[in-house]
């Protein structure tokens, strides 16, 4: 066909690719979305993503990895699009990762450091979002210490909201970059990366060790890893797993094939594991009586080379960062051959590029919210 650029939702259907009306989006009702179309106006949580959605993100991330490998790692896809990064929580790597991702797509990036903004003068989140929008923001990347804050932002923002982490609730880009990193590590297996690949973590044992209770990374990973078919284990002191047994019994989201195991027995969790993710132990947890001491935690749950000996020989180790080396992860493990932690950082840029790209193209109707 003459117009040889496949559009999701349009594909190679006769004449469809050539029929986009002049200068506008075709009404959604005219064309039911086909497989492969990205229909989410915002990305607030990974629980809204179907497996085809996740697969599309991973495949788009492949293309972004290719861009990152170019002599000039920059493409004009988002030229003229303003991406505003609004972080209410301290963060360096995630903020810089979003910034680099947006710049690699030629977007205009505004960075709002809350510490020096009007927020310190008492401006509400809603007012800040409205102001940012009036300043031209099309995509808003938001991080907030309060779970659900991005939902409030999305309710008043007419562009696209991308959750950069909210409270204990969700960290979608981290979960997707973790999934992408696992997929890359397993890419020797052709079926894993083939277009429309199945749930490539089927039969793979994935273990998350640490402070699951306070972790948005763990909560988002539960959705994506079980969606990919993983045999997921959550491990840590019982005080840091509270409530997860009930969730495990119900199955995530009540879906029968989304099961995971909760245990405080690290040896059992690590046995024959394919991938192990250590979570950061935050100092402030000690105050709440969750843990007796960091030393005790390191002695019982720290990931050491010796303990990882129980995992499969090809098992690899992830950490969302920043790491407390010597606490949740031993220094020789963090920088050892099993570690894919620096891959996670690079993949983080690629995944965020993919999501910015996909969100920028999604229709803006209320019906497509979430």
């Amino acid at each position, binding site marked *: *066909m*003459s*117009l040889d*650029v496949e559009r999701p*939702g349009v594909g190679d259907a006769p004449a469809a690719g050539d029929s986009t009306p002049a200068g506008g989006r075709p009404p959604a009702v005219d064309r039911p979305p086909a497989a492969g179309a990205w229909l989410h106006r915002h990305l607030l949580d990974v629980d809204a993503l179907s497996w085809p959605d996740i697969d599309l993100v991973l495949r788009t991330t492949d*293309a972004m990895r290719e861009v990152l490998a170019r*002599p000039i790692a920059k493409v004009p896809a988002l030229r003229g699009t303003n991406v505003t990064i609004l972080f209410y929580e301290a963060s360096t790597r995630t903020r810089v990762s979003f910034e680099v991702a947006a710049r690699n797509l030629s977007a205009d990036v505004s960075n709002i450091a809350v510490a020096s903004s009007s927020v310190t003068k008492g401006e509400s989140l809603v007012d800040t979002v409205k102001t940012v929008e009036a300043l031209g923001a099309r995509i808003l990347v938001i991080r907030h210490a309060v779970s659900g804050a991005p939902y409030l932002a999305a309710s008043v923002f007419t562009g696209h909201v991308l959750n950069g982490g909210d409270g204990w609730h969700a960290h979608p880009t981290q979960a997707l970059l973790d999934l992408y990193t696992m997929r890359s590590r397993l890419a020797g297996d052709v079926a894993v990366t083939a277009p429309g690949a199945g749930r490539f973590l089927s039969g793979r044992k994935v273990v998350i060790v640490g402070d699951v209770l306070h972790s948005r990374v763990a909560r988002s990973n539960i959705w994506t890893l079980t969606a990919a078919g993983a045999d997921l284990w959550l491990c840590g002191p019982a005080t840091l797993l509270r409530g997860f047994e009930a969730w495990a019994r119900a199955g995530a989201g009540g879906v029968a094939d989304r099961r995971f195991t909760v245990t405080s027995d690290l040896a059992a969790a690590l046995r024959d594991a394919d991938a192990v993710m250590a979570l950061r132990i935050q100092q402030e947890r000690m105050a709440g009586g969750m843990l007796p001491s960091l030393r005790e935690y390191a002695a019982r749950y720290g990931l050491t080379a010796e303990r990882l000996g129980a995992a499969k020989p090809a098992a690899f180790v992830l950490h969302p960062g920043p790491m407390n080396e010597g606490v949740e992860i031993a220094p020789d493990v963090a920088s050892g051959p099993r570690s894919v932690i620096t891959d996670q950082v690079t993949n983080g840029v690629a995944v965020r590029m993919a999501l910015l790209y996909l969100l920028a*193209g999604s229709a803006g109707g209320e019906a497509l919210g979430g």
Partner: protein
Amino acid sequence: MTGRRIMTADEIRRAVVRISHELVEKQAGTAGLALVGIQRRGVPLARRLADAVDEHEGVRLPVGALDITFYRDDLSLVAAQPVVKGTELPFDLNGATIVLVDDVLYTGRTIRAAMDALVDFGRPQAIRLAVLVDRGHRELPIRADHVGKNVPTSREEVVRVHLTEIDGEDDVEIERRVDAAVVEPIPEGIV
């Protein structure tokens, strides 16, 4: 719905062979030549051209694939983002003579995007263009160096190239756009 056939499998084969000779003739040899197919149907065409050159010159030209999605000028106009097919240029573009290969040349916007993409990878000595079908209606000052078949068309028509590697058969058809009466005129994004 089937349109009028304007090229048969044999005609496509002959056009590919002829263009493969033209490429070598214009370059006075094969030194420095590399083929870059534009996703999707330009890619198998580029491979066929390389096979044909190999047959009569005994030289294997490097072949790459180029996805121009990120360089489109209508990304903000389409309903959903196009699926990215992937770029693979396994050779050094600096100083090479790059022959861009596509199935249909229409408005020229795809080629504009492809040239923008190419120069991000290096500085070719020259960029040439080979297409299976030139259907006219250029919107940019772009012309093809090598053309399989010139086909006069109207904007209400659609040219469909089918290649065995993707579609299971080789032919080129032309048909009236189904919704031509409703949506018209249509400024193509990229063709």
